[in-house]
């Protein structure tokens, strides 16, 4: 279009990446997941799933409290911490003895998280992006290629060696595809296990689906851990991939075209 008039400045090629609704739900999820996790850990504190026999001097039975005590004993700078068993809870949750505010924050975030899930699905459908998330038969092998590349990256960096990332003729590489396909499923399962714990009587069939009330709590807990293990490499990779990738989740487009090599991270 801009090539018609000779005097126009050089063109920029914009490749559409993310629908507006996908971008909105992505960033809203940052806040909502943070709210769900910090309140969820405060709720966990009230009755930890993983407990051992109470320690004789303190009566403590919670592994998270043990971890806090260990950190305060071994990490320089934390030696003077006033309440070591609370260290993890004070830094990764609303804090101990916060059950009531944690519950209301958890419900608030959870209802918005469910709505946001619908916004995300709507965005995927309107933009046709859902097609790019579907796993392919070759993705298992492709994902391994990517994992190998990522694992080698720090060593290549140390040896100042440039490496060519594996290329794929698709919007996402196979590892991304597997991650972006499974994370929404994990989100759905979090919501379902959440309801199973929240209404174990009226929705007892739902709790039974996950092996009963107590097992549904374990599912819910490990799904949270899965989100955390997704988010950490996701954030590291998106920033190491570069500005174009970060920007595309804000503007919706990328300036990298296929022939230049597409983004392969987050």
């Amino acid at each position, binding site marked *: 279009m801009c090539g018609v008039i000779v005097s126009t400045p050089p063109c*920029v090629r914009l490749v559409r990446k993310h629908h507006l609704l996908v971008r909105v739900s992505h960033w809203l999820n940052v806040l909502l997941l943070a709210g769900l996790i910090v309140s969820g850990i405060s709720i966990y504190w009230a009755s930890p799933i993983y407990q051992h026999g109470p320690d004789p001097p303190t009566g403590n039975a919670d592994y998270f409290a043990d971890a806090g005590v260990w950190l305060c004993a071994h990490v320089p700078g934390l030696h003077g911490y006033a309440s070591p068993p609370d260290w993890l809870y004070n830094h990764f949750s609303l804090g101990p003895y916060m059950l009531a505010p944690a519950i209301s924050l958890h419900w*608030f975030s959870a209802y918005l998280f469910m709505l946001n899930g619908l916004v995300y699905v709507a965005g995927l459908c309107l933009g046709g992006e859902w*097609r790019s998330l579907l796993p392919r038969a070759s993705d298992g092998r492709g994902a391994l290629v990517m994992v190998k590349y990522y694992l080698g990256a720090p060593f290549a960096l140390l040896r100042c060696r440039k490496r060519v990332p594996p290329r794929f003729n698709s919007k996402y590489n196979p590892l991304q595809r597997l991650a972006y396909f499974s994370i929404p499923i994990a989100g759905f399962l979090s919501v379902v296990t959440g309801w199973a714990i929240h209404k174990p009587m009226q929705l*007892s069939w739902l709790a039974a689906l996950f092996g009963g009330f107590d097992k549904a709590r374990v599912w819910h807990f490990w799904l949270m851990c899965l989100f955390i293990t997704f988010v950490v490499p996701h954030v590291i990779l998106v920033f190491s991939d570069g500005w174009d990738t970060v920007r595309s989740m804000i503007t919706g487009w990328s300036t990298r075209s296929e*022939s230049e090599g597409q983004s392969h991270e987050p």
Partner: protein
Amino acid sequence: MSPDENSAQLKPAEASTPALESPGLFPERGPQISKVTPEVARRSTRRAFLAFGTSAVAGLGVAASQLPPSTLERLGLTFWPHNQWLLNNALRFDDYVAEFLYSPNRLMPTYTKSQITALRNNYNGVTPDSGYIPMWRLTLDGLSSGLAASLDIRTFLARFQIHDQITRLVCVEGWSAIAWWSGLKFADLLQAYPPVPQAKWAFIESSVNLDPNGKPDPYYVSIDLLSARHPQTLLATHHNGQPLTVEHGAPLRLIAPMKLGLKNIKAITRITYVKDEPKDYWAKRDYSRYDGI
């Protein structure tokens, strides 16, 4: 921004691992490319970042105002206002959802004796001296007769049919216990001593509790009469086939398996039927009010 007509002629990227490609059942569409002037791209970027920045600042601000004051203090944000409005309404909304899910005809799961688990007394106050039990009486108020009724435990055991039930008690903290209870149906008491016709709530009180310092710590809950009339809502007199111990609410406690454990009030001394929702011990402490599970 118009889609680029030439995009079909673009040479596909040379894949270093072509053997790995397989388009799948629903192949993704080719890239949608538009060519714009740098000025258009700049303006589009500026607009998107302004919108993103504004929403991010607003979102973070609202999020921070939802944190409890002690958490804000730990974050060094003492100056930031705390607002309970959104969270209160979330709790309220969730109570409506719970009320919507409730059905008088849906029975809660029951268990066998082999599935019974240890029952915990979660009250961190002082267990009261059992001396109150011989003098214990239950007062009923708000009755259609206009008079208050006063019953002792012998009347209860003699007048009402005792039912057994093994149900799960679910604590708001996340633990639960499967326990065997025996007692009369709350519905039977409501039939024998009908409340005033406009009554929608039971206000249930226990006055024997003591806080950790041994001071009186009266406990009270609100129960909607719909839940009270549920066939599995018991006024329990026995646990594991034995009369209730003081720790578990002797001589009469509420067992409402469709409610959180905190509504299952122990050592009931008074039930008042009222039209408007009465106060509730834990609702006053920022927990929800209906507590249906």
